[in-house]
């Protein structure tokens, strides 16, 4: 079957999709968006976390056909998504500067040393970005709760928690300046 939906602001289409296929498979294997990672395929690890009409979900548990006509945001779209949320202007596709840009949450993960093997990182970024959007000054309990569906086997999580605190603190500073 054919499925059509919006990914990171652009309409994508995939043909010959098997009816039992997951949104994750379609994103990775048919739309050339391998940012969302495929690990447990049962919703345990959160490495495939994307936003479906704004809501964080495991892409491995959404049937491709269920995404028809809906809006998906993946880690590839985070910089643009964050820019637009902050009121920035839309940029043309292929803009070299835009391609190199990172969202504040991504930058915070790098600065806090929250990335080791990196496999869990895309899912964590999407979940953390949504948390800060929903709750700009999250408590430690909020952070733990929001990331409780994302497993990391390298870091022991401390640096990840640091990164989310850092991203939230920076967003706070930005708001004060404005």
């Amino acid at each position: 079957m054919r499925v059509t939906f919006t990914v990171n602001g652009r309409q994508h289409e995939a043909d010959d999709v098997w009816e039992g296929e997951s949104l994750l498979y379609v994103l990775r294997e048919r739309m050339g968006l391998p940012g969302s990672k495929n690990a447990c395929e049962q919703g345990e690890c959160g490495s495939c976390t994307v936003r479906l009409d704004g809501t964080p979900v495991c892409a491995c548990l959404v049937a491709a056909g269920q995404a028809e006509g809906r809006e998906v945001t993946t880690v590839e779209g985070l910089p643009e998504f964050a820019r637009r949320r902050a009121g920035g202007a839309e940029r043309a596709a292929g803009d070299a500067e835009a391609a190199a840009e990172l969202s504040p949450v991504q930058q915070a993960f790098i600065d806090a040393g929250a990335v080791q093997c990196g496999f869990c990182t895309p899912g964590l970024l999407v979940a953390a970005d949504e948390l800060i959007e929903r709750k700009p000054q999250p408590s430690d309990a909020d952070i733990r709760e929001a990331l409780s569906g994302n497993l990391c086997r390298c870091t022991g999580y401390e640096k990840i928690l640091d990164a989310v605190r850092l991203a939230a603190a920076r967003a706070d500073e930005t708001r004060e300046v404005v």
Partner: protein
Amino acid sequence: MEFLRPASWEEALAAKAEHPSAVPIAGGTDVMVEINFDHRRPGHLMDLNRIPELHEWEVGDETVRLGASVPYSEVIDRLATELPGLALASHTVGSPQIRNRGSVGGNLGAASPAGDSHPALLAAGAEVEAESVRGTRFIPVEDFYTGVKRNALAEDELIKNIHIKKADGPQQFSKVGTRNAMVIAVCAFSIALHPESRTVRAGIGSAAPTPVRPRAAEDFLGAALEEGGFWDSGATLTPSLAREFAELCAGACNPIDDVRGSAAYRRRAVGVMARRTLGWTWESYRGNRPGGTTTEGGAPCA
């Protein structure tokens, strides 16, 4: 495989009548796992996400009508006052990502004995509204579970709503697992005090082939509270009374040994959860009675 995409409830019922083996999919948190792991290859997959009324809920005078696909996250955020036991249970489901998609209707459809919402539904009192092109049935939730991953739905029926009694007293939910998030219950327990009818109901999960109500324990406690005048006096519960309730709850279990825990552990843990949750709810009931002796709130005058 064929992907069915009914745009309305009527279309869904017609499709289910035409293809009785079609597997309904809403949040996908159970169904997609089975498909991803090749445990299931249904001829038809029927997407219920496009049917608006399944995502709606409504608070009535005595019950909450909960659409089958309302996600757990909404139960937690919006219905914690009316359905405190179910909201607590919902909070223990999987992770935020899972709670954003999974629903009570899906839990009932899968009918796993370990489903988190079952004990809370049993304790609160609930009816499953099942519909087919032939008509509508309201199935008391205790009659809905018929075996391990089996339920009372006919093959052409779909779950439309769950009608859950609004809390008229304190409710609690407790679950044993290895960590807080992403845990399938080793066993679970829910209790609801019903001061209006002066009864206590409970539900046990993952400690028998189906979720069960410990009826002997409920009857014992109901009678003991009544005879001892506890509802009116708001007195502290006698320890022997809580102990007897716990033992009867443990006795209602019919557990198995499996990877998550032994039968003996489950029986013991259910007893412990029964005693604790009874203590929590009773203290809350006492605390909500101003002065401790009047009968305001849910407790009717004797």
